[in-house]
C-alpha cells in the first residue's frame, strides 16, 4: 500500500536495482525445480486440521495494522505462532524476498506484495496459486481493482487483497479558499487552478511531482491508457495510445510552466509542504489520511477530499494507486496454516481490526457499510471522506495490468521519464525511452516482448 514512491537516495536505489537485477538473473538461470506441485486441492477440513495441530508461520509484511491481527489470530488459535517480520518496505522487501528465493532458504510462508509487483512473482511461478484453496470463490468479496491485481493478468489467484488505494484528490481547502480557487473537477480545471495558485503565491504549487512511476502509471490508468499487455511470457509495451497522449498533454504543461513543486515524495520536506500549504493538492490513494494525520499534523482541519478530476467532464473514471496483498511464496512451508492466516487477515475478522487501526479495505462489503462510510475524519474538518473513496473504488476500470517485471521498470523510471522534469526532454519522449528500456530488460529476462 505504501508507496512504490519511497525515495531513498539515488545511490541506494541503484544498489537495490543492482541486487534485484542480479537476483532476478540468478533465479532465472537457477530455477530447475518448479515442477508445479501447487495444484493439489486443499480443503477447509485440511485447513482446520492444520490450525488444530498448530505450528509457526513467518510473515514478511510492513503493514502496521497487521501486528494486532497477528496477536488476535494467535489468541484465537492457541498453538499457532505468527512470526511477523518487517523485512523492509516495498523495494527493500522485494530484494530480500528475491534473494531468499534465489538461495532457496529463509523464504517466508506469507509475504506482503504490492499489486504493481505481483506479476513479477506470480508469472514466474514463485507464488502458490490460491485457487487450490478455493480462493477464487472469494472474488465477489473484493473490489475490482485489487482483485484484478492479485490475478496478475492470468487466471490464477496469487494472493488475497489486503488493502487498496482507489484514488481521490486531497486538497488544502484553506489555501483554495484564501485565493478563491474552485476545486477542480476536470484536469483542465486543475491546470487552471495550478496557474492561478502559483500566480497568487509564487511559493505555492498545486502539487509536488518530480517523477514518480507509481503516480504516472495510475494517471495513465485513469486516462484510459493500457500500455502493458501480458499473456504468459508474451509482453507488449506501447505508450503511443490516446490515453497516454491525454495524460502527457496536460502534465507536460504543468512541467513547462513550472507549476509543480520539485520535492521528492515522502521526505521531511514533502510533509513540510503538505503542512504549510505550499503543496496544495495530492492525487493519491485512499490510504493517505493516516499519513497526513501523522506527517502533517500542523495542517489538521485544512485538508479535504474530492473525487478525482476527470479527463472528460462528467465522466466517472478512477484508478488505483498503491495497495498490497498477502501471498504465499511457493517455497514457503506450512501452506494450510499460512492460507488460514491470510484469509483471516484479509477476508475474515482481521479486516475489522485493520479498519479500526486506519487501514483502507479492499473488501466491497466494508467499503459499502454505513459504519465505514459515516466515519467522520477530524483531520478533514469532520468530512465523511470514505464515501468519496468507496465511490472511487467502484469506478476503477479492471482491465489494467502491470508488467511482470514492473519493479525493475519502476526503478528506471527516473532515468527515462524522470528526465522530463529536469531537462528539455518531454514526457512523451521520456515514455518512449522508458518503453525501450523495459523492452530491452524484458528480452534479457527471456520474455517475448512486442513494442
Amino acid at each position, binding site marked *: 500500500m505504501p508507496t512504490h514512491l519511497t525515495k531513498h537516495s539515488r545511490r541506494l536505489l541503484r544498489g537495490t536495482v543492482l*541486487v534485484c537485477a542480479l537476483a532476478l538473473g540468478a533465479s532465472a538461470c537457477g530455477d530447475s525445480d518448479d515442477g508445479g506441485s501447487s495444484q493439489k486441492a486443499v480443503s477447509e477440513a485440511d485447513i482446520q486440521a492444520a490450525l488444530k495441530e498448530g505450528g509457526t508461520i513467518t510473515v514478511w509484511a510492513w503493514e502496521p495494522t497487521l501486528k494486532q491481527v497477528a496477536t488476535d489470530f494467535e489468541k484465537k488459535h492457541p498453538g499457532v505462532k505468527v512470526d511477523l517480520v518487517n523485512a523492509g518496505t516495498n523495494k527493500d522487501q522485494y530484494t530480500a524476498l528475491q534473494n531468499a528465493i534465489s538461495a532457496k532458504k529463509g523464504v517466508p510462508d506469507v509475504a506482503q506484495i504490492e499489486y504493481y509487483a505481483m506479476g513479477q512473482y506470480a508469472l514466474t511461478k514463485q507464488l502458490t496459486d490460491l485457487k487450490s484453496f478455493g480462493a477464487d470463490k472469494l472474488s465477489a468479496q473484493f473490489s475490482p481493482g485489487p482483485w484484478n491485481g492479485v490475478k496478475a493478468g492470468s487466471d490464477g489467484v496469487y494472493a488475497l487483497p489486503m488493502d487498496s488505494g482507489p484514488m481521490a484528490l486531497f486538497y488544502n481547502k484553506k489555501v483554495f479558499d484564501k485565493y478563491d480557487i474552485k476545486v477542480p473537477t476536470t484536469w483542465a480545471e486543475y491546470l487552471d487552478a495550478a496557474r492561478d495558485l502559483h500566480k497568487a503565491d509564487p511559493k505555492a504549487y498545486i502539487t509536488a511531482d518530480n517523477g514518480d512511476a507509481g503516480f504516472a502509471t495510475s494517471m495513465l490508468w485513469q486516462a484510459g491508457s493500457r500500455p502493458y499487455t501480458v499473456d504468459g511470457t508474451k509482453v507488449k509495451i506501447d505508450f503511443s495510445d490516446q490515453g497516454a497522449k491525454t495524460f502527457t498533454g496536460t502534465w507536460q504543461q504543468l512541467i513547462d510552466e513550472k507549476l509543480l513543486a520539485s520535492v521528492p515524495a515522502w521526505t521531511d520536506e514533502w510533509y513540510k509542504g503538505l503542512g504549510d500549504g505550499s503543496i496544495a493538492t495530492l492525487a493519491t490513494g485512499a490510504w493517505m489520511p493516516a*499519513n497526513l494525520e501523522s506527517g502533517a499534523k500542523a495542517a489538521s482541519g485544512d485538508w479535504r477530499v474530492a473525487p478525482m478530476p476527470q479527463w472528460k467532464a462528467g465522466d466517472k473514471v478512477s484508478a488505483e494507486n498503491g495497495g498490497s496483498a498477502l501471498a504465499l511464496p511457493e517455497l514457503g512451508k506450512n501452506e494450510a496454516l499460512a492460507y488460514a492466516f491470510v484469509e483471516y487477515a484479509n477476508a475474515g475478522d482481521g479486516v475489522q481490526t485493520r479498519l479500526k487501526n486506519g487501514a*483502507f479495505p479492499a473488501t466491497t462489503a466494508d467499503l459499502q457499510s454505513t459504519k465505514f462510510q459515516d466515519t467522520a475524519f477530524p483531520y478533514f474538518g469532520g468530512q465523511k471522506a470514505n464515501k468519496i473513496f468507496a465511490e472511487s473504488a467502484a469506478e476503477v476500470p479492471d482491465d489494467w495490468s502491470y508488467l511482470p517485471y514492473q519493479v525493475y521498470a519502476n526503478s528506471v523510471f527516473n532515468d527515462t521519464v524522470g528526465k522530463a522534469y529536469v531537462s528539455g526532454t518531454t514526457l512523451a519522449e521520456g515514455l518512449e525511452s522508458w518503453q525501450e528500456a523495459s523492452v530491452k530488460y524484458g528480452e534479457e529476462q527471456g520474455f517475448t516482448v512486442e513494442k
Partner: protein
Amino acid sequence: MTSPVATASDRSAPTPSGTSRSAPRLRTPRRRHSADQPRRSVLLTVLTSLVLLYSLVPLVWLAISATKTQEGLSRSAGLWFDGDFALWDNITETFTYHDGVFTRWLLNTLLYVGLGAGGATFLAVLGGYALAKFDFPGRRAVFAVVIGAVAVPGTALAVPTFLMFSKMGLTNTPWAVIIPSLISPFGLYLMWVFATEAIPTELMEAARIDGAGEVRTFFRVALPLLAPGIVTVLLFTMVATWNNYFLPLVMLKDPDWYPLTLGLNSWNQQAATAGGEAVFNLVVTGSLITILPLIAAFLLLQKYWQSGLAAGSVKE
C-alpha cells in the same frame, strides 16, 4: 596575510629595513615560513573554511533538528530552533519507542563493531606483522591478492556473500554481519607497510638472542611499537562497521538483529508506508545519538592516529 605572490616579490625587492643587505637577506624571509610559523595563504584559508563549513553544517543541522518535535520539524527553518525545546522528550522517546528497540539496535551495533572491527584489526595486525617481518615463498602473490582485494568494493561482494552464507545457513544471524567484517584487506596492507617501518629487525634479533620466543617477541616487542598503526586500522574498521548498511540489509531480516543504520532507516521508511507513522524527530535524534560514540572514539584516539599517519615518513 602574506600571499605567496607577495612573498616572492618581497624576496627580490630591496627590503625596506635592509640596511645590512649582505648576510641575512636571503635567510630572513625563509625563516618566516618555518614549521612553527607556516606561510599563510588567503586562498587556502578561504577554501579550508568553506570545506569546514560544508562538513559542519549537516552536523549543526542534526543537532538543532534533534531539539524539535515532529510538528516543529515541518514548521520551522532547518538551521534554527523551533519554539518548543524537545530534545529530552525526543531522547526519551527514541529509547522507548517500539518497546525500546533502539537500545537493542545500539547493542547490536556495539557487538558488530566489537567483534567485527576488533577482530578485523587483530587479524590485520597478525597478518601485517608476519608479512612484513618474515620471509617466505609466495609473499609477492599474497601482495597481489591483497591489493586486488582492496580494489573490490564491498557492495559488489554482497550478493555472492549472501548466497554463500545462505548455503551455510548463516543468514539472518549476527554471524552474517560479523564474519565478513573480519576481513579488511586495506587494514592488512596498512599494517604490513607500518610494521615494515616501525619494527627494526635488529630489535627482534636482540629479543631472540635474549631468549624470547616468537610469540613473546610479538607481544612484548612488536605490539607496543605497532600501537599507532593498530589505532589507525581500528579507527578505519570501526567507522566502516559502524556505518555498514548494505551488508546487514542483504543479510538480516529480523529487526531484532538490525544495527542502528538499518533500524533508523526502517523508522524513516515508516513515513512512506500507508498508515505508517512519520517519526522524523526520532530518526533525527536517533542519528545524533548514533554518531556520538564515533565522535568520542575519534577524539580519544586521534593523537595516536596522527602519529600513525606520519610514521615512516622521516628517515632516522
